[in-house]
């Protein structure tokens, strides 16, 4: 059943490629232009709230560095045709473990780094093994991963644990000012744009991942197994190991994401990271990754995260105080993007746009397609 579906999809891709138009490229272009458009519109509409300032733009990175990590992990897993919904739980677990470690200065803050990476890796390895070698549904495996992480958080502590460790807080509040990028305030002082250590880590990881997906054997085989598992197998790619590595990488990124989140909001709270898997998935989808696998770019995910951050900043400015509106608006964006993706996915077939419409609205010329089906 899967094979027939796959073969039609790859046929579509072939057609698009022949026309000199890559599906990934078009989706990426739309995402980036939408972000630029949104940013320009909001800087015109809300001239008082300083959207034109460098510092506001860089704050989008500073505030959403952790989400970028989670979304990148999901992009990798989604390219391989799998899914990981445990990343939010891992984020919460890492932040709670860090808070518990640093309580009353028990250990040096340096140790939080290997521990958080280790937690992420452990989740990735176990889930990757179950998904790729035991061939269990990734949704179920990572769902249990989420249950486990969420439960472990409340086993450790059910109350909010503040972090007061001096070294950790110095990382959290450190700012790397970017020279030359500043706006003058009215009183003559300079409002210099800055990046937090978390944002710098996120950007480095992003660059590494872009290189890894583009240039390495792992990246190539990742796209291959996501696009068409069967032909990847025939090409001699180790499908199981590649899928396993994708899950391990996603777990590792979730661990880093948890660390960055704790740097951003330094306390261990049982509610930390709730629903972040959904934010991460929607960022990846808006960034052009497809759940069917084989499609997606880290740079697109970056813009998906930025759009998410922008919406969160703009919605309160619209005068809507109620907390439920940002979610509705994000969902509306998600909806628009999903529809766009579906249109592009079917654009490869001749008359693909028309196929989306109900039969009675189609023109006669479409009968050719029906004849093809019959023959």
């Amino acid at each position: 059943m899967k094979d027939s579906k796959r073969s039609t999809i790859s046929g579509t891709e072939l057609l698009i490629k022949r026309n000199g138009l890559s599906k990934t490229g078009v989706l990426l272009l739309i995402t980036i232009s939408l972000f630029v458009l949104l940013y320009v519109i909001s800087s015109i509409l809300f001239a008082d709230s300083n959207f034109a300032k460098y510092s506001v733009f860089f704050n989008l990175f500073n505030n959403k560095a952790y989400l970028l990590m989670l979304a990148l992990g999901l992009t990798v897993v989604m390219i391989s045709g799998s899914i990981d919904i445990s990343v939010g739980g891992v984020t919460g677990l890492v932040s709670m473990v860090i808070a518990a470690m640093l309580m009353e200065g028990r250990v040096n803050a340096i140790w939080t780094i290997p521990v958080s990476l280790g937690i992420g890796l452990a989740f990735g390895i176990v889930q990757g093994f179950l998904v790729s070698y035991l061939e269990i549904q990734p949704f179920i495996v990572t769902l249990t991963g989420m249950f486990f992480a969420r439960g472990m958080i409340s086993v450790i502590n059910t109350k909010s644990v503040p972090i007061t460790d001096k070294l950790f807080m110095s990382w959290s509040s450190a700012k790397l000012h970017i020279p030359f990028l500043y706006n003058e305030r009215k009183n003559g002082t300079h409002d210099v744009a800055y990046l937090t250590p978390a944002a710098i880590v996120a950007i480095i990881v992003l660059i590494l991942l872009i290189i890894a997906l583009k240039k390495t054997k792992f990246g190539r085989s990742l796209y291959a197994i996501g696009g068409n598992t069967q032909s990847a197998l025939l090409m001699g790619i180790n499908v199981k190991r590649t899928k396993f590595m994708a899950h391990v990488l996603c777990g590792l990124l979730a661990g880093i994401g948890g660390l960055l989140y704790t740097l951003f909001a330094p306390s261990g709270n049982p509610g930390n990271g709730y629903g972040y898997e959904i934010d991460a998935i929607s960022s990846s989808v808006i960034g052009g990754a497809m759940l069917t696998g084989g499609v997606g770019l880290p740079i697109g995910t970056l813009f998906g995260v930025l759009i998410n951050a922008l919406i969160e900043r703009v919605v309160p400015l619209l005068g809507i105080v109620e907390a439920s509106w940002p979610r509705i608006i994000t969902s509306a964006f998600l909806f628009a993007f999903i529809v766009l993706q579906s249109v592009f996915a079917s654009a490869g077939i001749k008359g693909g746009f028309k196929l989306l419409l109900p039969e009675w609205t189609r023109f006669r010329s479409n009968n050719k397609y029906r004849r093809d089906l019959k023959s």
Partner: protein
Amino acid sequence: MSNFSNGNKAIKPALKIIAKSLLSSRLTFSLAVLLVVVVQNIITTPTFFNISITNGLISGYIPDILDEASLLVIVTLGMTLVIAATGGVDISVGPVMAIAAGFCGLLLNGAEYRTEVFHSPYILALFVGLLGGALCGVFNGFLVSGLKIQPMIATLILFTAGRSISKQITHGQTIYVMNPVFKWLGVQIPGVPIRTTIIVSTIILILVVLLTKLTSLGLYVQSVGINGSSSRLVGLNSRAIKFMAFVICGILAGAAGLVGSSSLGSVNSGELGWGIEMDAILAVALGGNMLGGGKFSIAGSVIGAYTIQAITTTLYAMNVRADQLSVFKAFIIIVIIVASSDVFKGKIKRLSLKVFSKNVSVGG
């Protein structure tokens, strides 16, 4: 002597066939798990089978499990159809429950958030609630069958927005319906000794079974789930069937929302059906249904739902805190799913074959 050996010869293949069909049937596994949970309960709580009548209601361990599982059963039925027809999951059932209950509460209470008078007829409110659920199903179904979007991504939209929409419907408040009639659906109809939740879930179960067995819907759903494009070539409208599966799932989620809000006596859009989508998907998987679509078994899903509720109730009885429950659940589910995975089964089979053939060679 000869008689005995003859009998043995006849019995052995029969036993083999029974054992084989038991091992290959997907139902066996979920039943075995349920059995283990029940046996564990019998050992730890001797009062497990006790049934008493308090306040004109049959109460006890088993009726409690049946009562608490009823929401899950209703939602699981819809989820089974969606998974079978599309090979994807509907993760928006929890928020859809909240939306349906929100419509119902709004009609009953008008603008007030706490009142004893119904502002509109109860039946009408229930109908509108179901309609709300159906509308959500239509939206999901349109995205999946019309625009050919992955079910999980399509339902992600309502998953993120649903509770917020429900909050908009109820003006951001928890609606308390104080009229005792409101509790008929979720607690008890006066004079009937069985909890209404059990009755409602049973009726819905029978309706769904009739729908899939008496009409060709069940067959069509399986066919579309196994291979959508070849079913279309055979002449089935695979889009319409996927669409219908989502609409049915929406209506059932709506019904679960109405029952759930009624047994709470209030409409709380933030909490109603929280996390039920995950439990429902697990129930379907536990019931031995392929999450990739195709063949499905309603009985398996229902057993899966009751198993999950039984595990939850057992863990509560063992003094596990509600927030720690998920750790134990995760362990149990991983063990169950690993044990039922095809790769694991194949390995065990090969191992047992090895042992068996060794014995034969030694004997020979």
